[in-house]
């Protein structure tokens, strides 16, 4: 099917360097998610893979073939866009079949493949409609269907769920995961939402300011972040960064996840004042302010009653802490 290799890929727009040298291997059949804050270059990188942008330097190799000079349509890829990008003047059926028809397939093949994709995504009742007559969720399913029809080597998703509402986002996420299992195809998925990244990915590529910060399985990134950026980006609520000195810990910063901080009314390592409480039912997030460390998030499972302005004591579990040096790199002690 399809593997992808990026070698020292860079991209500059004039004096602005958007991608500053990315090396990456994506194995055949892998679900790889690019995640990072907005402006980190993840979409640009995807567009370079798709051939919609030229890399300033470096090589893009799809399935053993260097495709730097190959136009998008000949790279055997399919792409799903955030804004769906369906052709407004074509019916759902023609939207899905257009790419295949353009590549010279005969009408019978197109019909058969469209039928198969439509069955897979239960689009049959919508086939004769125009995109304008569909809801957002249906449009995105059609866009996904359009990508399946071409049986590409590589599926590219550019923030496909960002325009959907929360419930639909979860449903479509599950659908994409199912699709990946059924098709066994290589998928590259760009998102800024770390929940999507964690739930879908075999491997996550964390990007920041045009560089790869870390590549790894979701749990590797969670349990063994390479630096402060990855530690802070993966996990919600975000990891607490405490001043290491006052706690008698090595390094400059002690990173500790909210679920690894104990909270107690009677005693503990850090005295703090509750400043905000979020009750989510299954879990309770308490934000407590203390002088040395600022706002510290504590994640408790189940329902807990804490009042704003209440005095509490926080105790980080030192065994679950991460130590970071001044420059944000991880200290392994």
């Amino acid at each position: 099917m399809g593997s992808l290799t990026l070698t020292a890929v860079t991209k500059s727009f004039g004096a602005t360097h958007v991608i500053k040298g990315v090396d990456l291997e994506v194995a055949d059949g892998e679900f790889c998610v690019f995640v990072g804050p907005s402006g980190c270059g993840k979409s640009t990188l995807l567009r370079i893979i798709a051939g919609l942008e030229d890399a300033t330097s470096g090589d893009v190799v799809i399935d053993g073939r260097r495709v730097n000079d190959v136009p998008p349509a000949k790279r055997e890829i399919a792409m799903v866009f955030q804004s769906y990008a369906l052709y407004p003047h074509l019916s759902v059926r023609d939207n899905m079949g257009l790419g295949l028809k353009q590549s010279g397939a005969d009408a019978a093949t197109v019909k058969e493949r469209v039928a198969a994709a439509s069955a897979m995504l239960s689009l049959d009742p919508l086939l004769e409609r125009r995109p304008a007559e569909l809801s957002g969720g249906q449009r995105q399913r059609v866009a996904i269907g359009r990508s399946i029809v071409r049986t590409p080597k590589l599926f590219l998703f550019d923030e496909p769920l960002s325009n959907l509402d929360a419930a639909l986002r979860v449903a479509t996420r599950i659908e994409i995961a199912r699709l990946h299992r059924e098709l066994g195809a290589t998928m590259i998925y760009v998102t800024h939402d770390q929940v999507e990244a964690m739930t879908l990915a075999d491997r996550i590529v964390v990007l920041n300011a045009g560089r790869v910060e870390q590549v790894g399985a979701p749990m590797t990134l969670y349990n063994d972040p390479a630096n402060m950026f990855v530690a802070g980006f993966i996990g919600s609520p975000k990891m607490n960064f405490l001043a290491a000195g006052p706690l008698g810990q090595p390094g400059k910063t002690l990173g500790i996840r909210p679920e690894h901080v104990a909270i107690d009314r009677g005693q503990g390592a850090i005295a703090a004042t509750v400043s905000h409480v979020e009750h989510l039912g299954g879990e309770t997030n308490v934000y407590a302010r203390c002088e040395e460390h600022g706002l510290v998030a504590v994640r408790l499972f189940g329902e807990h009653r804490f009042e704003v302005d209440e005095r509490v004591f926080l105790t980080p579990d030192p065994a679950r802490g991460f130590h970071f040096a001044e420059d944000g790199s991880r200290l392994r002690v």
Partner: protein
Amino acid sequence: MSSARTSRSRSLAAHGILMLYTVIALFPVFVIIVNSFKSRRAIFAEPLALPTPATADLVGYRTVLSQGDFLLYFQNSLIVTVASLAAVLLFGAMAAFALSEYRFRGNTLMGLYLALGIMIPIRLGTVAILQLMVASGLVNTLLALILVYTAQGLPLAIFILSEFMRTVSPDLKNAGRIDGLSEYRIFFRLVLPLVRPAMATVAVFTMIPIWNDLWFPLILAPAEATKTVTLGAQVFIGQFVTNWNAVLAALSLAILPVLVLYLVFSRQLIRGITSGAVK
């Protein structure tokens, strides 16, 4: 509209002002059409009166249809207007697409250069244009007019259309590229239908000055075979005697084709003018 946001006096005032403007704008047209159906004596006796059985006279239309070759003039006007319009829309849209879609050195400069034409009237170059046409043997041909009008219409067309094309989703164009559509297919099948309202706006703004122009037909193509309607109507205006019946009838007839073209574009036009404002 909800009654909470409307006040009777204010909407009356607004409608009053609009009605007044409509009357002022339509008055000359009304006078021309009404008088074209009257006898010469009646025109001068009571210019504002409607034609009555006593004053009604179709002599103007008879003169127009018998004297001179008005059918040919109409045909010339239509050929020039439609051909220029088609050229302006096609080349204007293509240039606008290139300016809005592709990054290349000098893109902004090129856009500014093309927009400069909006500010500099093409008539300043009349002498040079005439010399050019004489040198290339195009004097007294409709092609000369079509070329000049195309040049005249392009700057505004490019300016308006490139603004609109920037609003077309880049994802859509990219989806087309991934599906293997050529840049021409993307332009004609995906982008053009989406900027149709803007095209209609440009069409109307381009068409009317061309149809009404007297300057270039007079200078570049005054021959009998290439006369346009506006130029043809001038034969009835003399230094000492003017055949008002014929002039008014010719003008009334000249309104018709533009009116038809306008109606064709108007539904799109309203969307084009307002779409920038409300979205």
